[in-house]
């Protein structure tokens, strides 16, 4: 076989989109996958990541920790904004022991939507701690299961001890437009941040 028969480099390659991403974080069963699926162009995909698990929290860096290996499933979807821009939504487990996984997820992300079940607020503390620490724009989305909230948003804000600058919104993870609106609140926060810090 000579070189003339080799495959030609692609000349009219389909344009490669710029990928951007939003992290959808929260504890198990709070509706992360539902959120992703409601807005995604495609049915949510699942992939597994095998990772080293620090037995202690990510903030306890000074302490020698036992490390084991575990496998974490991650669901994600995407929204094709246009031919040159594709938005990925990564739903990730919110436990602090997976904090190192968030580094890969959060790097270069536009922001994070922390999904909260108002009955189980504790589940989202590690995610909020992480995003506050890294400075990634985030909002809290309280998933109204069956249209019901067990606490008022102001009570939830107080319980989460987050600053007034962090939006807390109520949304329904099953509703496409509701998820859209929550993401738009997040992106508004991200836009303000980007405009305020042009050098970043």
């Amino acid at each position, binding site marked *: *076989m*000579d*070189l003339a*028969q*080799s*495959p*030609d*480099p*692609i000349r009219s*390659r*389909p344009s*490669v*989109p*710029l*990928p*951007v*991403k939003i992290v959808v974080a929260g504890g198990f069963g709070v509706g992360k996958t539902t959120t992703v699926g409601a*807005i995604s162009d495609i049915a949510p*995909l*699942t*992939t*597994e*990541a*095998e*990772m080293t698990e620090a037995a202690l929290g990510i903030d306890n860096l000074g302490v020698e920790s036992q490390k084991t290996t575990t*496998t974490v499933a*991650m669901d*994600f979807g*995407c*929204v094709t*904004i*246009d031919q040159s*821009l*594709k*938005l*990925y939504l*990564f739903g990730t487990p919110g436990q602090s022991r997976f904090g190192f996984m968030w580094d*890969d*997820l959060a*790097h*270069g*992300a*536009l*922001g994070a939507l922390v999904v909260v079940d108002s009955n189980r607020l504790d589940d989202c503390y590690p995610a909020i701690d992480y995003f506050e620490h890294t400075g990634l724009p985030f909002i809290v989305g309280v998933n109204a299961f069956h249209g019901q909230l067990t606490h008022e948003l102001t009570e939830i804000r107080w319980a989460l001890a987050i600053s007034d600058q962090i939006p807390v919104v109520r949304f329904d993870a099953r509703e*496409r*437009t509701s998820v*859209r609106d929550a*993401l*738009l609140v997040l*992106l*508004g926060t*991200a*836009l303000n*941040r*980007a*405009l305020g810090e*042009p050098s*970043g």
Partner: protein
Amino acid sequence: MPDGRIRPYLRALVPVERFGGPAPTAAVTADPAITRVPRPFVLTSGRVTGTDPTIRLETQVTARYSGQRWDSPELSRLPSEMRNIVLLCAEPFSVAEIAAQLRLQLGVTKVLVGDLRAAGYLDVHVRNSADPSTPDVIQRVIDGLSAIT
């Protein structure tokens, strides 16, 4: 290139790429030692760290050559997992999508993608600027999402 050493099962395309030599022939692929392909964790030689940190979940990957088929001579030496990646990436796909579609673990996928890039099979479209969160990009996402009903 982050990985200067090309794994033996990836060497098929390298002479063509680097030295202009002949492409591998069918006789090469008839070697029974090559047809017994290793499985993913063996393919990565247990590597899960030390991969190119610029290869991220959302990083777009495309095949360098068009029109390749399952039995193309350039692909026939590859283990099936790697061949599947090259074939899938006839269109742009993210690392996460490759992992999900081919049921490979993310870490394994990153390693294989990095190896296939080093061997000249794939283009990995790493962003030049570290942070895409510019006002312009964010505004385009806002406009795109706002159009969803």
